[in-house]
C-alpha cells in the first residue's frame, strides 16, 4: 500500500491520501504499479498510458507529483516522454508533449537535469568522409560539411539513454 511521507509534500499533492484515492482516475493496481520504481512493468504501464490523450491533464499532475524531488523517477519518466515524442503520428505525440510541459517546469533541485535530458546537450556536428580509415583526417567540421548557412552545425543529444547518440536513440526536443 502507498504510504505518505509527511516531510515530502509536493506542489501537486497536499498529503491527504484519501483525497487522492477519491479524485484519482487510476485503479489501485495501476497506482501501485506506478510507484514500483525500478520495475520494468511500471515503465511499460506509463508508456501505454501516454499513448492516450484522455488522461493527459491527470497524468500531468501525477507525473509532476512523482517526479518532484525524485531523480530516479524523473529519469524513468523522461525516457518514456522522450520516446513518446519521437513517434511519427501527431495524435501519439500530443500527450507526451503536453506532459513534457509540466516535466520541464517542475521546480526542484533536479529541474536542470530534466531540462538537459529533454532538450539535450549541444554538441558540434561532424561527418566522416572516407569510412573509418584515418578517421581524424577524414573528419569534416563546420563550413566544410554544410551547403547552406541554415544547415545544422550543432546537434542536441540527450544523455538519458545508455547508447547516447547511437542508432535508434530518441532525439531530444531541440
Amino acid at each position, binding site marked *: 500500500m502507498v504510504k505518505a511521507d509527511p516531510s515530502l509534500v509536493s506542489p501537486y499533492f497536499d498529503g491527504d491520501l484519501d483525497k487522492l484515492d477519491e479524485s484519482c482516475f487510476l485503479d489501485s493496481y495501476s497506482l501501485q504499479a506506478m510507484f514500483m520504481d525500478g520495475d520494468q512493468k511500471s515503465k511499460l504501464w506509463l508508456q501505454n498510458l501516454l499513448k492516450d490523450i484522455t488522461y493527459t491533464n491527470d497524468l500531468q499532475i501525477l507525473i509532476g507529483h512523482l517526479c518532484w524531488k525524485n531523480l530516479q523517477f524523473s529519469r524513468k519518466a523522461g525516457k518514456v516522454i522522450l520516446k513518446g*515524442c519521437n513517434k511519427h503520428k501527431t495524435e501519439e505525440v500530443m500527450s507526451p508533449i503536453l506532459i513534457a510541459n509540466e516535466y520541464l517546469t517542475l521546480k526542484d533541485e533536479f529541474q536542470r537535469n530534466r531540462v538537459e535530458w529533454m532538450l539535450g546537450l549541444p554538441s558540434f556536428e561532424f561527418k566522416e568522409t572516407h569510412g573509418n580509415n584515418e578517421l581524424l583526417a577524414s*573528419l569534416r567540421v563546420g563550413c566544410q560539411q554544410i551547403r547552406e548557412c541554415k544547415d545544422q552545425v550543432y546537434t542536441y543529444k540527450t544523455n538519458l539513454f545508455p547508447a547516447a547518440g547511437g542508432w535508434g536513440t530518441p532525439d531530444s526536443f531541440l
Partner: protein
Amino acid sequence: MYEKKDFWSDGALHMLGNLIHACTEKDANSLLLKTLLTIPGPSYGCVRYWDWIEPHCVSQLAKKYGVSEAQQQVYTQILVNIKTLRQEKTALFGDINDPETRQLLEADGDRLTDPYLVWKNVGGAEWIDVKTDAANHLECGAGELKTTVSKSLPQGGLSNEYIEDM
C-alpha cells in the same frame, strides 16, 4: 525541432508551440527560457537557439501555400507567446553584449558561447589520448584537429542563404 522545421511535421511544430507555451505560462523561475536563450544556435545563422524561432514563424505565416489553417494558428500563438515573454521578461531579452543582460542569463550556470565559424582543416589530425579495454572490446579516443576559425556575426534569424568561399 530545427531539423524538422521545414518538413511537414506537425509533431515538431506542436513540440515547439508547447515549449514556448511552457516558457510563457509555467516557467516561474525562467530556467527553461534562460536555457533556450543561452545554448548555441543550431546553425551559423543564429547565435543562440532562441534566435531562429521567431523569424521561422514569421516566414511560415507569410507563405501563401503549404501551411494549413491549424498550423497557422500554432505559429500565430507562438508569436503571441514570444511577444508576451518579451514584455514580461524584458531584462532577459536585452542585447547579449550588454554585461547586465549577460550576467542575468548566466546566473543559473548557463554560459553564452561566442559563435565561431569553423572553416577548413589545416592538418594536425592526431589522437592525443586513446584508451583500450580489450576485455570488453572497447576503444575510446580523444583527437585533435587543427582548423581555421573566424568570428561569426549573425544578425539573427535565417537571413544568409549561402556561405561563400566554402
